[in-house]
């Protein structure tokens, strides 16, 4: 391994640490916020678990109401955005502020901070877009936060097969589904807006350097947490 490769393979902190805590204050603040967000989502997921399993088999069957393939694609999009975020972090740590750069002897160009953060923003915005599309479709079919709308397609299905569609607890199903996915979608939207702000005010003017890229690490922590929460939500809400 050459000396140059060794430097590239090292992970260095993006800014000097504060004495005492061992990390810089922005990062510590984000971790404390994430810890509080763990409790916030626990309250939502915990309530869902209690309601869901308290009802036994009365709940709608997985895939009966929700579009699982579409949401699976959305999950893939969010996982891709998480890896592009961490690639953006690695790029600026290596001093790659550029968008794309040709590497001699290689077909693919090397992505820098500008490229990877833009990919993350596009994937994040794509996730929000697909979720909005899903909401519009669900409401159109009659699935609302209060249950199945009278006279709708889903209400007719629920009448024909009340067990499969969980007709007895549709209101509870709708309220828990829209509350959990809605709050998560709100988090994703906030993340996309924050990344857009960083992109135009810090990344494009090349204000980050390998010596200081705190903003990228802090927004990265938030973004990965949002991905982590979705991994749990996808399993609990869509698959179980």
């Amino acid at each position, binding site marked *: 391994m050459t000396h140059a490769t060794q430097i590239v393979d090292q*992970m260095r902190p993006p800014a000097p640490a504060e004495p005492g805590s061992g990390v810089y204050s922005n990062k510590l603040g984000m971790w404390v916020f994430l810890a509080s967000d763990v409790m916030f989502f626990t309250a939502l997921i915990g309530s869902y678990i209690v309601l869901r399993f308290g009802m036994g088999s009365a709940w709608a069957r997985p895939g009966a109401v929700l579009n699982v393939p579409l949401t699976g694609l959305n999950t893939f999009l969010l*996982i891709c955005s998480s890896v592009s975020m961490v690639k953006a972090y690695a790029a600026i740590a290596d001093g790659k502020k550029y968008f794309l750069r040709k590497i001699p002897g290689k077909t693919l160009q090397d992505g820098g901070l500008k490229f990877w953060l833009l990919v993350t923003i596009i994937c994040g915005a794509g996730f929000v877009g697909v979720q909005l599309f899903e909401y519009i479709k669900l409401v159109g079919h009659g699935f609302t936060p209060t249950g199945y709308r009278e006279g709708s397609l889903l209400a007719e299905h629920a009448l024909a097969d009340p067990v499969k569609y969980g007709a007895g607890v549709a209101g509870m199903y709708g309220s828990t589904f829209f509350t959990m996915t809605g709050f998560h979608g709100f988090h994703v939207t906030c993340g996309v807006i924050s990344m857009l702000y960083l992109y135009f005010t810090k990344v494009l003017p090349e204000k980050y350097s390998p010596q200081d890229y705190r903003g990228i690490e802090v927004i990265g922590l938030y973004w990965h947490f949002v991905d982590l929460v979705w*991994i749990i939500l996808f399993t609990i809400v869509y698959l179980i």
Partner: protein
Amino acid sequence: MTTPTTQTTHVRPNYMLIWLYLFVMTIAEVLLAFELPVSQNLKLVLLLFLAIWKAMLVALFFMHLKFERWRLRLIFIVPLPLAIILVTTVIMEKVF
């Protein structure tokens, strides 16, 4: 004003490999939920196991928790038992 202190460096994980793991496990979850003939209880356990494994990969490697100091890890770890206590208490209230 920040004071520079001694900081350690770590070998960077292979992010694309972790992305591949997450991708494969997501497909496995969907197949397990809808295609594979497995009993409901086993399906529940396996799906939760896969979800927790995926979440751990994100926390440890993408959020770099594996490489952080213990005092920082604790900030993230401490709410988890509290979360379990919260859920268990609510379930107990429902049961009794």
